[in-house]
């Protein structure tokens, strides 16, 4: 039942043959495939890392461009606002000048009208005074002497109270 004989040696040889065959047909190709797969996985991971880095770079680039665009837009808005403000100021100034011009023109007109009115009034008053005086005196003096007399009187009035005639 437990005899030991040359079978022992034969079994060792059988086993060694099996090791040799398996090494040739299975282990070497298998180890190769495992190594290949490991290499492949490493490559894939490296490639993925690279892609990720690239994507991050792109993202940063985009963000930078976006920020740039925003700054430029802000600059354009600022410029437009400044321009608008300048335009408005200019128009206000122009309007103000126009007003001032119109005002001074109106004042001039008023002054002129008043002077005219004063002159008219003066001659009217002279003739009225003459008429009144001729009635009072009852006798007509020479008109030239009369006019001279009254004008001298009115001129005196002008000198004391210029432009404030009760008219």
């Amino acid at each position, binding site marked *: *039942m*437990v*005899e*030991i*004989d*040359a*079978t*022992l*040696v*034969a*079994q*060792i040889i*059988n*086993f*060694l*043959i*099996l*090791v040799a*065959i*398996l*090494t040739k*047909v*299975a*282990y070497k*190709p*298998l180890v*190769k*495939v*495992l190594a*290949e*797969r490991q290499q*492949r996985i490493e490559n894939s991971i490296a490639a993925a890392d690279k892609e990720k880095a690239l994507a991050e770079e792109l993202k940063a680039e985009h963000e930078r461009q976006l920020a740039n665009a925003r700054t430029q837009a802000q600059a354009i808005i600022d410029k437009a606002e400044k321009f608008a403000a300048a335009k408005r100021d200019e128009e206000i100034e122009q309007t103000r000048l126009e007003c001032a011009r119109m005002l001074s023109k109106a004042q001039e007109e008023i002054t002129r009208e008043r002077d005219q009115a004063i002159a008219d009034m003066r001659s009217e008053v002279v003739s009225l005074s003459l008429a009144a005086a001729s009635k009072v005196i009852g006798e007509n003096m020479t008109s030239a002497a009369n006019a001279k007399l009254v004008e001298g009187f009115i001129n005196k009035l002008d000198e004391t109270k210029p432009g404030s005639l009760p008219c």
Partner: protein
Amino acid sequence: MGHEIGAHHLAHFAGFTIHMDTMYMTWLTMAIVILIALLATRRLKLVPSGWQNVLEMAVEALLNQIKETMGPKGVSFAPMIITLFLFLLVGNWLGLVPGLSSPTSDLNTTLGLALMVIIMVQLVAIMNKGLSAYLGHFIKPMVLFLPINIIEELSKPITLSFRLFGNIMAGEILIIVLGMLVPYVIPTAWLAFSVFVGVIQAFIFTMLSMSYLSSGLNDEGH
């Protein structure tokens, strides 16, 4: 059954006696192992499937075990150890097929493999530590321990081979005996258990071989 327990069909040539039935079973085992290996590696793909997956899982599990127990130097023993496991596994299971017997139920097979492993361990130890350190380890911690150390070395192949031989032989005997005594249910249960025993014994043999080899490779331990 056509199989007489413990009796071998003998062949004699050049003064040697050889158990032909054991030889046939061994060759059948080898053929099956090689067939599985061929099936698994016939079309190797980067993305494994089918048999390739199975063999890869087994090989990778054993490789990891080898690296853990024996360190990086042990990888060169990987083909031997993986083959040992596959051969023992298929061999142990072969005896569960009616009409066939396990090559491992012959002591010549198990003792042969155990002796091969132990001789390898001694050679590895001599190559790794040098002859004087190897011989010096037999008289550690003192000269008185020389017989104990020698017995320890001698016991390694004996325990290794008899454990496997006894388990498989007992399994086969019990299947036959139970089949005769209580047919159907009990033998089936024992058969299922023997499948488990076959894995465990193949694993134990392989693990112990690895552990002996790693003790030869590394300086600590005996």
